[in-house]
């Protein structure tokens, strides 16, 4: 059929091959002779770029098709087939995945280029890029997978890569611990995903376990099972996209190199959860309750993370929390069934958040790995490119029209309002204000005012071109990405939404223009308020305040980590040692020990009867036979 193409499988393959080659080269270089970084860099960038080109090809091929039948498939081979479970290693490109494909490969390539500069003179240069390529490959599998199981491969693959890259500086225990945390928390989510798949399969999987067939059979799904499936899948999404209660790993994940944070923990991987919910929109559409749960989880996460963001002092932590909070927005969007809005926010967020991280990276790079914003300041003149690009990013994040963030976020809030989730809308607007506040808190403290750390300031200088060019490109994206989905009120026609429509079960609430205006107005006001407060407090070089009361509470993230530690981790270990120290030897093994002990003792006791006096032996005989004869006489009558 005309939908089958043979090159979809190649898109993930290139980065994976790159990963393999780089890995082998790295291992080789460990034992004999170093390999020049240029060679590594070259190989590293080939994969992503080629994938990007393919992504463009896919995009245009889809564009050439009639909207309702826009999809390409490529069934590479039967992965495994047991009973009526048939899993093919297949790839599916439809508008949704093609959009993801585009920006993942695009941003991925940019960040690879950026990393060449950032990671320069790192002795594990090759390893780093091998991991990055591996990540990109897995991410592409995740995006392109034609069914949940294939998606799960990428899903866990990116988890692995994030583990490897978080614990990249593995000499330091904390980094490794952060990596473990990320992996384990992700695994908790994956359990949800796995069980969700299982339920889904037993419900409607017999007719084929890939999205297209599932979508056809989705009407067979009973609401009960549907709810279970949705919630379980959402658990998976929470793990991957750092939502309540599984968001704790993302801030720690900043232990990895900054490009990693930009690529994995801001732009791509963490949005996989949103992507997944959108993917399964045909199920979520059936069970509104699930949608509501998703939306509320999202918006509450957004609020919580935003509050945490207000009080952080580590520049990357701030960005991390803002990421969590933005992800919350996205879930709110998909939760209220505005899938296209959610995905669009994913899209824009990828640009400006990557931009912010890379900018932060540049700053950190300039200040020799200083991450505390209270030790920065006045870098505006020192590194203008970084400043201006980051400013754009900040504005986009804060949702200032006409930057990208504004449109996407506004779309979400509007749909929340329009679908009658007023509560979500209110919180959303508040969060928008807070976002503006902490974003500009960061900007002011880093770039304005007077330098707080003199000699670090003196050594600081603009990053090399290989790093700034990606910044600029992304800045452009952050500026104009929003216009791709211009709502009608601004004379646009929601291109992206229409593009995504075929692969989503999207419904656009038709409400009066007034509501839309209200939404826009409120979010603009919120932004304004946030930014003014920020300016008041930090505009012109503020001094570090004492964290007290609520601030302290917020700075310590409401002590949630400590809570988990005492409620979950400590007991877990305790159980382990209890089992090993006391349960195993004293309870489980008791019967065995006891029986052998008894046997030995009984044997020892029995020796007593062997007295060695022949008379006694005769007596034994007599006793024995008298007892027997008694019994016999019983049996006689």
């Amino acid at each position: 059929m005309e939908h089958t193409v043979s090159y979809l499988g190649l898109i993930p393959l290139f980065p994976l091959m790159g990963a393999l080659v780089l890995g082998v080269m790295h291992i080789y270089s460990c034992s004999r002779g170093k390999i020049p970084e240029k060679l590594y860099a070259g190989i590293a960038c080939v994969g992503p770029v080629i994938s990007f080109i393919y992504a463009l090809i896919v995009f245009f091929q889809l564009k050439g098709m009639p909207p309702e039948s826009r999809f390409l498939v490529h069934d590479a081979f039967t992965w495994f087939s047991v009973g009526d479970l048939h899993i093919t290693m297949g790839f599916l490109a439809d508008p949704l995945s093609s959009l993801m494909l585009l920006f993942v490969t695009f941003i991925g390539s940019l960040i690879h280029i950026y990393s060449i500069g950032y990671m320069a003179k790192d002795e594990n240069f090759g390893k780093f890029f091998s991991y990055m390529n591996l990540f990109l490959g897995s991410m592409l599998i995740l995006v392109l997978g034609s069914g949940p199981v294939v998606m799960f491969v990428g899903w866990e693959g990116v988890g692995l890569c994030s583990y490897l890259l978080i614990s990249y500086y593995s000499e330091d225990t904390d980094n490794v611990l952060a990596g473990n945390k990320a992996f384990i928390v992700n695994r908790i989510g994956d359990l949800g995903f796995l069980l969700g798949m299982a339920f889904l399969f037993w419900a409607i999987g017999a007719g084929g376990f890939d999205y297209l067939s599932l979508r056809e059979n989705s009407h067979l799904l009973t609401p009960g099972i549907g709810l279970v499936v949705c919630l379980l899948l959402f658990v998976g999404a929470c793990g991957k996209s750092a939502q309540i209660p599984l968001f704790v790993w993302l801030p720690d994940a900043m232990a990895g190199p900054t490009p990693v944070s930009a690529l994995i923990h801001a732009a791509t991987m963490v949005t996989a959860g949103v992507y997944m919910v959108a993917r399964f929109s045909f199920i979520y559409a059936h069970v509104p309750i699930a949608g509501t749960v998703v939306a509320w989880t999202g918006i509450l996460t957004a609020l919580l993370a935003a509050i945490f963001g207000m009080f952080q002092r580590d520049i990357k932590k701030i960005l991390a929390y803002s990421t969590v909070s933005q992800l919350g927005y996205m879930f709110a969007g998909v939760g209220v069934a505005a899938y296209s809005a959610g995905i669009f926010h994913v899209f824009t967020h990828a640009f400006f958040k990557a931009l912010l991280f890379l900018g932060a990276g540049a700053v950190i790079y300039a200040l020799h790995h200083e991450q505390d914003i209270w030790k920065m300041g006045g870098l505006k003149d020192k590194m203008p490119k970084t400043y201006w690009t980051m400013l754009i990013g900040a504005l986009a994040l804060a949702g200032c029209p006409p930057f990208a963030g504004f449109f996407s976020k506004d779309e979400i809030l509007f749909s929340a309002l329009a679908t009658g989730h007023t509560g979500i809308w209110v919180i959303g607007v508040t969060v928008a204000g807070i976002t503006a506040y902490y974003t500009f808190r960061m900007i002011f403290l880093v770039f304005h005012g007077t330098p707080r750390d003199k000699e670090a300031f003196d050594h600081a200088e603009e990053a090399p071109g290989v790093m700034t060019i990606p910044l600029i490109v992304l800045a452009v994206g952050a500026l104009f990405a929003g216009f791709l989905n211009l709502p009608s009120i601004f004379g646009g026609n929601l291109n992206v939404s229409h593009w995504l429509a075929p692969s989503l079960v999207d419904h656009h609430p038709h409400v009066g223009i007034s509501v839309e205006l209200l939404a826009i107005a409120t979010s603009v006001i919120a932004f304004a308020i946030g930014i003014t407060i920020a300016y008041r407090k930090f505009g012109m070089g503020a001094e570090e305040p004492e964290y007290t009361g609520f601030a302290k509470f917020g700075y310590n993230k409401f002590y949630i980590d400590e809570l988990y530690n005492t409620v979950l981790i400590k007991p877990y270990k305790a159980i382990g040692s209890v089992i090993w120290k006391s349960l195993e030897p004293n309870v489980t093994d008791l019967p065995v020990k006891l029986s052998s002990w008894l046997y030995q003792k009984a044997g020892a006791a029995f020796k007593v009867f062997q007295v060695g006096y022949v008379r006694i032996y005769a007596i034994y005989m007599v006793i024995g036979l008298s007892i027997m004869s008694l019994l016999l006489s019983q049996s006689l009558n």
Partner: protein
Amino acid sequence: MFENVLSVMIFLPILAGLVMFLSPVNKGVARLAGFIVATIILILGVELFIGFSGTAAMEYVENRTWIESLGINYSLGIDGISLLVLFTCAVLFPIIFVVFSTRTKGFYANLLITQGAMIGAICATDMVLFYIFWEIMLLPIFFMIGLYGGPKRLPATLKITIYTIAGSLLMLAALIYVGVSYHTQFGEWSFNIVQLSRLDLSGGYAVLAFVMFMLAFAIKIPLFPFHTWLPDAYTEAPTSTTFVLSAIMAKIGVYAVVRFVVPVFEIEFARFALLLALSGVVGMMYCGLAAIAQKDIKRLLAFSSASHMGIIALGVFCMNVQALTGSLFQIVAHATSTGVLFLFVGLLEERMETRNIGDLGGIAYRAPIFATFFGIAMLASVGLPGTSGFIGEFLIILGAVKFNVFIGFLAGTTIIIGVCYMLWMFQRVFFEKTNERTEKFKDLSLVETLTFLPVILLIIFMGIYPQPFIEKIEPAAQQHVANFSSMPETHVVDTIVPTAGLKHQKN
């Protein structure tokens, strides 16, 4: 020659081992000879695997009368159920001979005899024959642990031997009961599993016999709570023995349940399935949790192995085709992941003279190849997609959910529990700072690398393209489940458990 390849595969190693015992060869020669024999077996095994046509029927059948008066035959055969177990047993042995050079000839002889006996147990389709090989394969283990084991080897070896023999002697009584009741029902003696599956047993003694069978296998697998011999034995045994125990011998327990218990005792099996599945899951969690508390890598792996065996066993007890196929597949996957991890630990011990996690660290920087291989095997054992470990676990969990949601959920937790202790161990052994001990850690030599590379590739290949394996075992699993579920439900209720115990013998 190929029509009785199975006999060759059984008796070539055994004879080689015996000759090695009796002839005064030095250990180098013994090792070489052992390697050659193992390689021949490997070639035969692969050949056999390829030649296996993947129908549900028995292939490579051999049948000779042995003891007419009791209808005991020397009958061998391979089908989808046993294929992968045999494959594992045949393929993994040469590694041992390459990797560990510091052993006496007796050790190698023992290894060969074990292999032969295990292959025999896998191929036997006559219960008595199976029992004989089943018992024989324990003896070399007994000697290997006792002669070449660690400091606290004597209690360990005594415990494993008596514990397992206790189980198998009970099984002996049970299988004789089965044979006798076949004789009473059909008027002829037979211990052939194909004929025995026609039996319909019911009543107290059937339950008793079933319990005795399951006990034997539960001890061997080991199922919770009969696993207590395992930590000591696995830890005290020389690494290659531990490898044999965990990679293959445990699997034979699972295999035997599928092959001998399910067809004969459908009714009892159906009645106890939930309980057994529960014990599998509980064992998985119990051992997984216990693994966290271990200081000794080998013991940690021992517990992790036990934990995975719980899952594999669960797959059998769920008795739907996905779970069963998953288990059969996981048998290989687990052997190639956890089993190989044991070998790696053995190498580690040889180089570092310690297995204590606390004394290690930063090995990844000294030995990237070793670290990579270890990492891949570890990821396979925690069931990461793209490695062999995922397919099996996925299928088993899928089946478990079908079987019972609660069980399925508990079974799912394995992907969390496993990752906890593994990452914990990996962090402390391979990451963090190197110390003066690990400073001078030697990476894998070329030979070792080339030895392990095939296994690592197998892990990945089986993860990415498992279908060739699955399509060979799936029909047999299909049929097995079909036979099982064709069992009339009405039987399940009208079997009574013996209340008066054993006191009413005369029937």
